[in-house]
């Protein structure tokens, strides 16, 4: 079964066509996981790539994410317990002292679009709160963002809090935000740096060894 129509519609953000294609596939008795993986998630991979290149921008990316969400809603009644798998759990938030969450929200949407389950701690998240949530959820990835260079040090403090509580080696750390650089990520001992929401997905997959 090919999901070209569905994928194209998600990439274009054409909600109606995408929903129709999803319904057709469900009616034809297709495997739900296949529709999700080969139709929806594959489309969001394309979107992420185009966004990173600059071919697509935030509004279009959001339109695609919304299209995907609507389609996932249609699939939900057909999910059987334990049948649909998640790619991994991600705990996200902006660091202590930082209230700017627009970039972080985009990352959340793209990660969800790629099949990750995301626990969003929102903004101004203290190091202890990150640690507690990572522990509680057994998250595989922790993502932090900072828009202001003055709040960047909180990233390093949060990583230190992970080390201190002995769970640093159980979680991969990804960081991003306007003033953040790959060098800074290396300097503070983060595992990955994502310059934009599309790259966040690529990096997340790389860290967990998903192709």
């Amino acid at each position, binding site marked *: 079964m090919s999901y070209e129509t569905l994928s194209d519609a998600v990439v274009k953000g054409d909600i109606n066509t995408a929903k129709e294609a999803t319904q057709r596939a469900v009616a034809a008795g297709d495997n739900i996981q296949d529709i999700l993986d080969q139709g929806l998630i594959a489309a969001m991979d394309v979107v992420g790539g185009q966004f990173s*290149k*600059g*071919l*697509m921008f935030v509004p279009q990316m959001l339109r695609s994410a919304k299209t995907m969400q609507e389609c996932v809603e249609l699939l939900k009644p057909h999910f059987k317990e334990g049948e649909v798998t998640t790619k991994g759990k991600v705990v996200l938030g902006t660091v202590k002292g930082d209230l*700017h969450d627009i970039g972080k929200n985009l990352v959340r949407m793209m990660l969800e679009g790629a099949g990750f389950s995301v626990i969003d701690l929102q903004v101004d998240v203290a190091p202890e709160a990150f640690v507690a949530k990572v522990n509680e959820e057994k998250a595989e990835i922790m993502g932090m963002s900072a828009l202001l260079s003055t709040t960047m040090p909180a990233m390093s403090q949060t990583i230190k809090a992970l080390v201190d509580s002995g769970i640093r080696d159980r979680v991969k750390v990804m960081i991003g935000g306007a003033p953040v650089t790959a060098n800074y990520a290396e300097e503070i001992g983060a595992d990955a740096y994502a310059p934009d929401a599309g790259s966040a997905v690529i990096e997340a997959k790389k860290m967990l060894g998903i192709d």
Partner: protein
Amino acid sequence: MKKTKKPKKKVRYKGSPPANARKKKFLWLNVLPQDLWIKVRRGTTVWKALEKTNVNLEGECGGLGKCGKCKIRVITAIGPPIREEAELLSPEELKTGIRLACRTKIRKDLVVHTEVSDEEVEFFQILKYGQMPIIQMDPLLDKRPVSVQPPSLENPASDVDRIREGLGQEYRHLKVAYQCLSSLYEDLRKTKFEGTAVLHDECLLAWQPRKMAARRYGLIFDIGTSTLVGALVSLLDGQDVAVVSRLNSQNRHGSDVISRIQYVKEHSRGLSQMQRHLVEDLNILSRRMLQVTHLAKGDIAVAVLAGNTTMQHMFLGLDPRGIAEAPFAPVITEGMIVRAQDVGLDLHPEAVLYIMPSKSGYIGGDLLGFVLASGAANEKDRLVLGLDFGTNGEIFLGNRERMLTCSAAAGPALEGARITHGMIGKAGAIEGFRCDVNSLHYRVIGNIKPRGLCGSGLVDLVALLLHHDLLDADGLLRPISEEATSEMASRLVKRAGNELHDFVVVPSADSLDGSEIRLTQKDVRELQLAKAAIAAGVKTLMKTMGVDTKDIDVIYLAGALGNYVHPLSAMRIGLLPRIDPEKIIPLGNAASTGAKMVLLSKQYWNKSAEIAQFIEHVELSTHPNLFDYFVKEMSFPTENLW
């Protein structure tokens, strides 16, 4: 943030270094063309080494290796560039030894040249003038000719008491400044008791000869994050006698307030350095103004200063760190009156300095000055929208019934930063475009060959691209059709290696440094983010107020971009709401105008405090609808305007 240890003491020599400088932990950095020798610890970056000197490098990111603008030419043989340099610099640049100061670590004695290309004296376009409403003169400082009775057996009262008598009932509670008292005995007698009283409030600041009565001047300063403007104003008629400007010397520590505060955070003496930079800059400005007008510093006994909250804090030596982190609380927002000498301003020893009130961490005295200059707080029926574009775009909306304000994190794109060939408004920047019968014309500041785009040029260009349909509403640069042959269309070229297109603004043959000036897809994205932030701020204020675009009666624009940007272009790209262009009025340097109004009429000092109380601050970063507005405003309007 990693702390790099700095050498405790940096030794600087002019001329050649001492012969016995041994190569050890410390190395020598020789900076040309100044021929400055700086002793630095091995491993320090050139950027760090230059931070404390008078050498000014360009740079927007404060040494993070992101902007690629702190270029230097390394004369000493040097290894291959590091990753950021390879990305941010062209192969030609790398070949000629050009590197980024913030990425170049000093591992051996190094000779660098700070002028990447041979440039003449820079000409910066700094907006110095503003539109001034007509006001009733009642300056902060008064000078009165006074005749004082010499002491006699019949009237043996003190000198001060007899001055009180001479001044009359109004000044019966007169106080006298200490400096004035200390020389009063002689001053009175030298003038034979016929002199001029320099009065501020109920205080005698100085006693001067009678002929000085007409010498009434005051200073105003607009301290912007990037540029500083000073004006010497006659208190008799309110005319500017001299206006000068210069770049803020703090620029070497980053181009925005956040990187300046970051510097303060990371350096134990950072705040006093920042303060010293500002005070020194203002002293240079005052000296220059006094020089050209043949006045002495003793002639200036009053000054008014307006700046954003961070600059005002730094000027006073108040710790600005609270402003850089949520909840963004400054030390103080009230206006203040301080003695100029207490902060180190070199004016009359008793000169008083008025610091404008502010509203919050990101709504400063400059915005209140703008509100004052616009007269919006007195408007009864008309709804006024005011915008000051900058890294933080400040916006106000309302009239005397209700007034809202917010600060939108637009980023520096509108000032030419983060744009591939962007630059601030100085010689060589294209400030405007025009297109007739499909051929593109541009206007360059300083009337020389172009070398980049400043904010107003960028807005004009993108508006033209939208108009000619080379840029779609989503912000994608793409050809209209395969066979389009117009001049505009032919400038759109495909990038090697991917599907993106660039717009060739100036071919290499026509540019100042012989390299092409392009507008890239990434540049358009940066502009989309910046204009969306501003437009989302405007929308948030309109929704909070419960009004619509059609209710806006007038839009006032402050600052350089507001002054030079074409209103139609700004509306075409969605930076401004679409209204009758006749209703869009640039006020020029409105912060200066506000400060001048305070200087010239005491009522405006009180008025500015009232406005600070009255105006409501809308915090955008936590506003529930901001995200939706922001995303919506990223797209460009579809309809053409001309």
